């Protein structure tokens, strides 16, 4: 790691241009979405945009199907995040406090739902639900989402645990606290921001997920499912544009917050999705 204060070689113009190019490649498309949300053009993706309006924001807000999809996404995201917080923290605590047979395998098992293509997780869950004749409901969505959210919480909390000195816990015990007091007054305050960051990232992941969701949703529509159906069969394009901008805003806020919450630590939140 080299800081700018150290006398080092300066970057060549080619390298700078390539860096700038990559950053623009990553961000210009998102800016374009925002631009289109204000377009007066209804039918096509015409560029340059013929005129600007904010009317579509009101139209989108009045749409019953959009509201319903939004509410389902929030509900599923909240429950899945809660489940992932509990299980991810438990797994991180177990891996941190002791060495046991199969410890390495646990990390692999946790990471598998996001390492294998989402379609495999999705179709697996669906075929199992079909076999057990479980009807689609909010809970089938939650099951799918919690499965891939656990690892996000686990990564964040484990990284924090690894920087927490065991001596703190020993000191707490030596000073007469019992296990639950130690948990409440020493361990939880210590991992609080990691839990917050992990939880927000898990929510962002769930709020955006579409691949696993299509397999466990049945007839229900979360916001991404609504979006997908609009992409395949567009009904009112300006409304889609507005919802897209809304989704960008909802996912950006937790990510920026999570970044700043864990910035001073070595493993920044979300470094590995």
């Amino acid at each position, binding site marked *: 790691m*080299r*800081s*700018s204060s150290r006398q080092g070689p300066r*970057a060549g113009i080619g*390298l700078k241009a390539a*860096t700038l190019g*990559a*950053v623009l*490649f*990553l*961000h210009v*498309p*998102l800016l*374009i*979405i925002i631009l*289109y949300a204000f377009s007066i053009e209804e039918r096509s*993706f*015409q560029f340059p945009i013929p005129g600007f309006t904010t009317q579509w924001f009101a139209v989108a807000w009045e749409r019953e199907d959009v509201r319903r999809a939004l509410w389902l996404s929030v509900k599923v995201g909240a429950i899945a995040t809660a489940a992932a917080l509990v*299980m*991810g923290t*438990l*797994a991180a605590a*177990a891996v941190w*406090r002791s060495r046991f047979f199969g410890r390495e395998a*646990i990390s692999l098992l*946790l990471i598998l739902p996001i390492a294998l*293509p*989402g*379609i*495999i*997780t999705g*179709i*697996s869950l669906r*075929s*199992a639900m*079909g076999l057990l004749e479980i009807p689609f409901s909010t809970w089938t969505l939650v099951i799918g989402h919690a*499965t891939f959210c656990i690892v996000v919480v686990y990564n964040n909390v484990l990284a924090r645990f690894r920087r927490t000195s065991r001596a703190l816990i020993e000191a707490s015990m030596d000073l*007469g*606290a*019992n*296990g*639950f007091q130690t948990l409440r007054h020493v361990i939880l305050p210590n991992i609080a921001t990691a839990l917050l960051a992990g939880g927000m*990232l898990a929510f*962002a992941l769930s709020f*955006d997920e*579409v*691949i696993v969701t299509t397999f466990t949703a049945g007839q229900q529509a979360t916001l*991404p499912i609504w*979006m997908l159906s609009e*992409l*395949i069969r567009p009904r009112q394009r300006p409304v*889609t544009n507005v919802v*897209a901008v809304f*989704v*960008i805003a909802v*996912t950006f806020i937790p*990510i920026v917050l999570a*970044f700043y919450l864990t910035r001073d630590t070595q493993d*920044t939140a979300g470094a590995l*999705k």
Partner: protein
Amino acid sequence: MTAATLPAPLPRGGGVSRFLYGRPGLVLLLLLAPPLLWLGIIYLGSLFTLLAHSFFYLDEFSGVMVREVSLDTWKEFFRSPAHWDVVLRSALMAAAVTLASALIAFPLAYYMVRYAGLRLKGLLYLAVMLPLWSSYLVRVYAWKLILAKEGIVSWLAAQTHLTWLLEALLATPVVGGPSLSTSYLGTFTVFTYIWLPFMILPIVAALERVPATVIEASGDLGANPGQTFRRVILPLAFPGVVAGSIFTFSLTLGDYIIPSIIGKSTPFLGETVYRLQGTAGNIPLAAAFTVVPIVVMGVYLMIAKRLGAFDAL
């Protein structure tokens, strides 16, 4: 330091706490049980259910799945050359996307680690993380706007008098098409865009592990910057590229949404699986198809491990 020699004081308070204190094994079990039961039963259970389905078969006349163990589905899978086309097309696309991502990611990662100051580095980091975590569908949608026939790319080409170039690209056999949003070129661009952050982050991690002293030593021993880059930095950062390629390759292989929104109608692996389990209702064959990415990724992970990619994750 006396704590090591004195017997540990028994904790005061609740009976549960006292009971658990002397039984670390039990605590471990209680900690591990919920996540292991969840992932073990729900996730692995489902995965094995799916794989087991590939040994069932579809009755030829009624089209109903027969729950008897047989190799019929696998025979059907291996017999059809169309299936191999799908696998090959998907693997080629995944390889092309991986290569392009590596080429775009490396300069950015290199600049971030070696030249950027602390503040700029933080900003660049955030610039990579935001697209990584922001909505996948919204980003695909953005490209639909950009690549559409009346969209931005066409407009830019017209403004810079490069329409002939765009037309020449679209006229190229295989990769071209009527418009960018209905060609392999478009699919390729969008795949690269969506998975690029997954390539950048591992390369950054790998580059950060190259000690500054090694680079200085290379210079002291008479290597010019180009030689240092080729013979010291690149080999040391290569595991990061391999680690990133695990993601770009696997994600491209399994995705079915991007090629169905942007690209030609010829199916990729993910789309084939989706269609088979959905409209075609052939879950056994869909299950056999999902084994392909699992096997491909298994082999890939083994090679990656040998190349030291796991240390760069």
